[in-house]
């Protein structure tokens, strides 16, 4: 398991591209927002938590189609499927690698981008906490979507269509934690819900992803 994780991480770091791409996309989306809604700092402060969450979500989505596709093309996915490691563990590791290379940098970059959008002082800590709790769910759900579309030639657009509706609960609760934190309200209820969703998704969805992957590898 650790060997697989370190292989995926090495590939992501050394092959370049994929690692920085999500971050750059996140930055650009955030920079474009003031151009589209205007530079009034009071307005930006109100929408900052939601925009940052949406940007992080889209940046996560961007790298999903390469999550399994590269291994599918060169055949290493077939080898992984016949390896002693259960396929459920393989997809969990894949999701973890995706989170470390995409989700975690987004979490770390979010406060910096929060400055650009004039996020209120109190909001920074809650933004980071909500992203930290919520992004693993995004990676795991995304792995399920990637497993569904791995065999398709032009799966990219279909992948977004399948995955985005599944992101709705995570986005609602995550953005709610960040929003409430920014205006100094109680955040424990949505945070608990968000944590519940992440825990449930991490525990159950790898089984669905592995089942789907088996069908695709048949």
């Amino acid at each position, binding site marked *: 398991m650790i060997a697989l994780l370190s292989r995926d991480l090495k590939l992501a770091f050394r092959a370049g591209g994929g690692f920085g791409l999500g971050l750059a996309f996140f930055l650009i989306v955030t920079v474009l927002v003031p151009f589209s809604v205007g530079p009034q700092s009071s307005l930006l402060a109100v929408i900052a938590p939601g925009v940052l969450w949406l940007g992080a979500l889209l940046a996560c989505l961007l790298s999903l189609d390469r999550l399994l596709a590269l291994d599918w093309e060169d055949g290493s996915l077939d080898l992984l499927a016949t390896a002693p490691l259960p396929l459920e563990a393989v997809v969990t590791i894949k999701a973890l690698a995706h989170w470390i290379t995409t989700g975690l940098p987004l979490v770390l970059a979010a406060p910096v981008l929060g400055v650009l959008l004039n996020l209120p002082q109190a909001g920074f800590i809650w933004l980071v906490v909500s992203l930290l709790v919520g992004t693993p769910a995004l990676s795991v759900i995304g792995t*399920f979507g990637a497993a569904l579309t791995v065999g398709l030639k032009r799966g990219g657009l279909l992948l977004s269509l399948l995955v985005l509706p599944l992101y709705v*609960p995570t986005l609602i609760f995550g953005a709610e934690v960040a929003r409430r934190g920014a205006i100094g309200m109680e955040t424990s209820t949505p945070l608990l819900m968000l944590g519940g969703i992440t825990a449930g998704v991490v525990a159950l969805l790898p089984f*669905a992803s592995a089942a789907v992957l088996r069908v695709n590898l048949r």
Partner: protein
Amino acid sequence: MTTSVNRNSLWAYANPKKFLQTSERVLPFFWITSGLCLVVGLIWGFFFTPDDFRQGSTVKIIYLHVPSALMAINAWFMMLVASLIWIVRRHHVSALAARAAAPVGVAMTLIALVTGAIWGQPMWGTWWAWDPRLTSFLILFLFYLGYIALWEAIENPDTAADLTSVLCLVGSVFAILSRYAVNFWNQGLHQGASLSLDKEENVADVFWVPLLVCIAGFVLLFVALVLYRTGTEIRARRIKALLARERVGA
């Protein structure tokens, strides 16, 4: 265990031939009764019920809105059951029935959304509000689109059936999650249930009877459409198999 399937068992219809024979026999019945119910229910509802004292004649869109909303959810539920049957027992008719039901479900969801918007404009003063019920129907609509797109995208029919049924299962869980998440996110404008059996706040009897007739009409129409479309899917697959056999033989 007996070797032959009991003729009266539900599973006998897993045989495509038997399914086609029976569905062809009962289809005229469903077409005619659904047509009758819809004509009677809609004419009764539109022309022979009094206007509501607050909502005026706009209340009459209820005869399209409520039945289609009901069927939009039940169509997904039917797809869920059919997908489960496919996963557990691998009956092709079941997978094809789920595939056949999806576009009908989309149509029902669209009717519910559009009639709701037309109703909402004079009543709430807006075509659209981000109300929990409206929002969850929009999300349901997106789930339908994804499900159909996945069916269309995959060439191998068995793979497509497997993947879409897993998507249907996972999607159901997430659809329910979204329903409650959306509730948490925004309190609504939409009225409560108008047809529950245990509450006082039901619609008045004059509206209630034609509404029931309309609902019956929509249910029968749904059954008829799904049977018909499933038959079409079975035949389309047979033609494909015949063509493939011809090509190999020649």
